């Protein structure tokens, strides 16, 4: 027994260390897999074409901001960023507002075909965009919304509102109705109860839906490609797409554009990452 004890102690003392080493090694590998493409994107954005093609390396031999200058000064990429901010911001505000009311209605009221409406909302979201772009283009053209940023916002709402509503339905169901009822007993209206009780309690869910909608609108390419023609109304994905002409990819400016366009989304996620995880997981399990 006495001979066994040291071995046992050794096991007990080494196992946590080994486990920790294994844990950190795994985490480092995962982090590397995630961070390396970002690192590569940044380094390519700091290289000139010859170095990109002929001298591939992990570190730029002659770092330069020339790609950023070309992108911003010669190709007006800041206009693309401004357009994307307008479109994604407006889509997010409108989508969160509309889907909040829609989800509130479905969760708190009783009326005919409520379940059917809820399911149709989900089906609307599941329809592939590639099937819808031609019918949408007909509607957009006839309403004379083509080649306008507000037209693009309206088109994006047709996709973002169903998803946002569906996510918020799950989140609102997790908030006890009794809390709003108590507020109404104290004299507030139904709308007041929603604004003062439900929405503050649902902030993580609203934040998650907002960020999700913003990211989707920020990154969307196909519909923007169809509905936006004028150079001054192109969004960020379109601006990047136009850096590919024919069979030539301008890798330096493309990567510089990718870095610049990722910044707003990175900042947004950094500020609201806690809400994002909390909101999405809550909605997913309580629906």
């Amino acid at each position: 027994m006495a001979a066994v004890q040291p071995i046992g102690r050794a096991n007990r003392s080494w196992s946590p260390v080994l486990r920790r080493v294994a844990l950190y090694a795994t985490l480092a590998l995962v982090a590397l897999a995630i961070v390396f493409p970002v690192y590569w994107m940044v380094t390519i954005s700091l290289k000139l074409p010859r170095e990109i093609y002929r001298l591939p390396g992990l570190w730029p031999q002659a770092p330069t901001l020339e790609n950023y200058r070309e992108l911003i000064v010669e190709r007006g990429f800041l206009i693309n960023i401004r357009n994307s901010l307008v479109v994604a911001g407006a889509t997010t505000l409108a989508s969160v507002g509309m889907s909040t009311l829609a989800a509130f209605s479905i969760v708190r009221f009783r009326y005919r075909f409520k379940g059917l409406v809820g399911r149709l909302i989900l089906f609307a979201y599941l329809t592939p965009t590639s099937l819808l772009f031609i019918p949408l283009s007909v509607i957009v053209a006839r309403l004379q919304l083509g080649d306008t940023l507000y037209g693009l916002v309206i088109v994006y709402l047709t996709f973002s509102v169903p998803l946002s509503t569906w996510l918020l339905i799950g989140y609102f169901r997790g908030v006890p109705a009794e809390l709003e009822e108590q507020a109404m007993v104290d004299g507030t209206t139904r709308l007041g109860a929603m604004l003062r009780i439900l929405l503050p309690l649902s902030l993580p869910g609203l934040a998650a839906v907002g960020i999700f909608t913003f990211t989707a609108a920020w990154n969307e390419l196909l519909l923007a490609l169809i509905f936006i023609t004028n150079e001054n109304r192109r969004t960020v994905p379109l601006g990047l797409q136009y850096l590919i002409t024919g069979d030539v990819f301008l890798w330096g400016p493309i990567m510089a554009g990718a870095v610049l366009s990722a910044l707003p989304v990175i900042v947004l996620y950094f500020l609201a990452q806690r809400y994002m995880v909390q909101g999405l997981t809550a909605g997913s399990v309580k629906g």
Partner: protein
Amino acid sequence: MNRQHRISRRRVLGRAAGVGTVAAIGGGAGLSRLEEALAARRAPAVLRQGAPLVYWGGLIFSDEANQMLVDEVTAWGEANGVATETVMINQNETNQKVSAAVESGTMPDALDMGLDLLLLLSQAGELSDLGDLYATIGGGEGGWYPSVDASVAADKLGGAHTGIPFGASGNLLFSRTDALEAAGQTPPPETWQELREMAEAAQEPPLYGMGLALSNVGDGNLQISVMQSYGGRVANDEGTDCTIASPETAAYLEWVSSAYEAGLFPPGATTWDGAGDNTAYLAGQAIFIANTGSVSIAMDEDDPELAAATSYSPLPAGPVGRVSPINPNVRAVPTSTQDQDRAKALIEHLQGRDFLERYYAVAIYGPVLQYQADFEAFTGPVRAGLADLVTNGTAPGAPDVYNTAYADFSANFLVPKMVQRVVVDGVPIEQAMEETQQQGQAIYDKYR
């Protein structure tokens, strides 16, 4: 509590009804706008004189050429009192843009396109007959090049000249003379077999011999030309039935698969995107590529050393001859254009000698009219190669009949897919040919 709930619900429903009323009014306004839009589409040209003439130019890999085109259209508009709106459309996205525009009735007044789209839109009756303009432009000194003229012949395009060619594209063979000469080889190779032998002698990975795409992209369809130069045919002489399964196609597949097995193609050539060969060449990883010329512009700007080590020549020949198709780029006027005369006048202006002489010097196109051969632009190696291609190249699709079925066959990348079945999946050549024969016949059956 329930009472409170019911009352609140009524209130909410009442508010919803109010919102609905507002929406209905808004909808009415939307309908008015819809009617206005439809009326505008029906309005005669005289009522739309204030609307700008919208022109979709094809964006190419030369900022200077793109800007020159925009400036020329603007200057023409100002000189003629016509408001113009020029939008440069990325040629990679022309099909999507045009599909949506045709359906929604928002086609521009004039636009640039390639031959495939011209064929489809012409046969759908979406493009105007520009026969008079075609004859006027071609009636000058020398006229159209025969190969260009044959490519856009009216009988191929629904009985009318619907496209005015303004530049010819096609593939040239790019060769790394430094690597080849170091291995005792003298480019250019005259045949595909000779190319393979030179590649084998000179390649030293990561510098690979044959930078030819075998993937499902436009560059991959170069393999159709190689197959045809071995005697293989996509379809019969009438262009009605697929005839790809043949001993000649088998000989081509033998050539390409043996080269692949010998490791002459760069890794990933079967999955390259449209820029795969460009990237491989610019990265110094390919001795030979077939390219329309964009790589030479990139080299001139970014890698003069590589440009100096590159020579240009026509595509090699196969056992039955050289197949090197030209692909004219054209300007067209949709039938939906209200002011056809002004659209045609713009196109005629853009065919002017002064403009084209400057434009060809910065764009990568071969000439379409015979007098243009004297332009200084066509004295440089790449553009001279393109001019030679227009003179000695083959018609699109030739020796096959270039029709809608052929365009559909090409768009489905059946030949590169057939090669992939052999070199990636390890399927026997006979089986790969038979599979492609069935797929190809299904396409040709659609157009009977």
